[in-house]
């Protein structure tokens, strides 16, 4: 994408029918550190790569709890993400106050998308430079949405955004058909593996990633570092035993405990981690 005379203003169309400012805003999302989301029928897991300004600083917060049943992971301009999270929290609370019922995720996402669209059609505004992975549960099931700066939103079984997210996406594309019936543990494991893919070489440790889960009986919460490290250790050990986990099927079978349907689709059903 090169600089041209149609890209100064968000309200200027290019002759080819493009709004460059909006597209540049989407570029900002690609610059942020990776955020990954996946869902099953009953749970949604969000994972993100922690990025710190320097070795001395703490990492930026990229996962926000919006309500007991909704959480969001952001990539891009974190400040914009914080503002949008505050908006989402406000909407959820207001809905709950009037109806004593949780705001359906699908509706929150549409409100968010409409808010983003406004910024693409006002000359005195700029698009939000942040992509949001919204994870939530409502009476129609578990949902994962991606809201982008253009004001579009899409529903996904699994998705990854941010830098080096393509590697994670490739992994998810291979495995997503199984996610629907995954157990909670398998889903988290897949999230961790996808996160590892986007680290590309760097060792996966709990200090470098954050995991959050929401489920039917489980309010949205961020897993603490210890739990995450244990989960990492669990599958990393087996990965070493079985050689590099190039066949993701092997990694998924380990912690399955064979209860959920994950075993059937691999065909192997072996569960070496069964204790």
């Amino acid at each position, binding site marked *: 994408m090169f600089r041209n005379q149609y890209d100064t203003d968000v309200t200027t169309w290019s002759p080819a029918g493009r709004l460059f400012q909006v597209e540049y805003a989407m570029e900002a999302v690609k610059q942020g550190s990776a955020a990954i989301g996946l869902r099953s029928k009953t749970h949604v897991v969000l994972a993100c790569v922690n990025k710190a300004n320097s070795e001395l600083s703490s990492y930026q917060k990229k996962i926000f709890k919006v309500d007991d049943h909704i959480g969001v992971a952001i990539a891009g301009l974190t400040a914009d993400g914080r503002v949008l999270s505050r908006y989402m929290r406000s909407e959820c609370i207001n809905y709950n106050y009037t*109806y*004593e019922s949780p705001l359906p995720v*699908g*509706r929150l996402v549409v409100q968010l998308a409409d808010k983003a669209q406004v910024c693409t059609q006002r000359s005195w505004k700029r698009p939000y430079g942040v992509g949001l992975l919204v994870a939530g549960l409502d*009476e129609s099931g578990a949902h994962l949405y991606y809201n982008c700066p253009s004001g579009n939103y899409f529903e996904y079984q699994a998705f990854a955004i941010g830098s080096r997210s393509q590697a994670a996406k490739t992994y998810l594309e291979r495995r997503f058909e199984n996610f629907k019936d995954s157990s909670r543990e398998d889903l988290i494991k897949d999230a961790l593996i996808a996160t590892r893919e986007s680290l590309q070489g760097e060792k996966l440790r709990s200090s470098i990633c954050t995991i959050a889960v929401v489920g039917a009986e489980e309010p949205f919460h961020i897993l603490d570092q210890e739990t995450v490290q244990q989960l990492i250790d669990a599958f990393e050990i087996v990965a070493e035993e079985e050689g590099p986990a190039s066949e993701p099927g092997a990694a998924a079978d380990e912690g399955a405990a064979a209860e959920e349907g994950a075993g059937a689709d691999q065909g192997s059903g072996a569960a070496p981690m069964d204790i």
Partner: protein
Amino acid sequence: MSESNRAKQSPLISEAASERTQYPYVTGTSVVALKYKDGILMASDMGGSYGSTLRYKSVERIKPIGKHSLLGASGEISDFQEILRFLDELILYDNMWDDGNSLGPKEVHNYLTRVMYNRRNKFDPLWNSLILGGVKNGQKYLGMVSMIGVNFEDNHVATGFGNHLARPILRDEWHENLSFEDGVKLLEKCMRVLLYRDRSAVNKFQVAKITEEGVTISQPYSLKTFWGFSSFQNPTVGAEGSW
């Protein structure tokens, strides 16, 4: 909405003039409702009193709301109609989302509580006692909101005189998993007592039922009454003097 109507009538008077409490003009009397095996049963008479005159005798005081709820109201009939318009708009917007989610009885009940309480705070109440009942995803819900915003849920509720005359009967005779026939019989017992003792009651009733499948509101019908008590024959026998 009602505020703008007032403003239109008196454009020269500032809207800061305080709204005094309204007086109800055309009122409905009690509504009684209970939970039964398959859902909710609600009954009311069809009278609209104009003060002490039993003026209107075909007022429907129970209406379906959306797919999952029934609303019964006592008190000012015009305010009830206003509330129906609010709810109509609410349900319309809910349907327009077209996304598999829908407002259930609990949500409607809470919305009404907010509306009633808000109006009360502005010293401009909607002069109604509302009963909201419904079934959604197998869950039965029955709640009440008063004109000052007091709200609660229970297995059986009543408004107005029903609180004093019907609820004691319900407390004694209601139990879980009433059949439809038993529920209707119980409601009719309550309505009969109200017919005898509440002067604003008329002998023309509707019984409404809501289950997972939907809403049914019966055709109007009357209850049999018995007035042949001996003390009603020749009531002045035994009275001394002219007074």
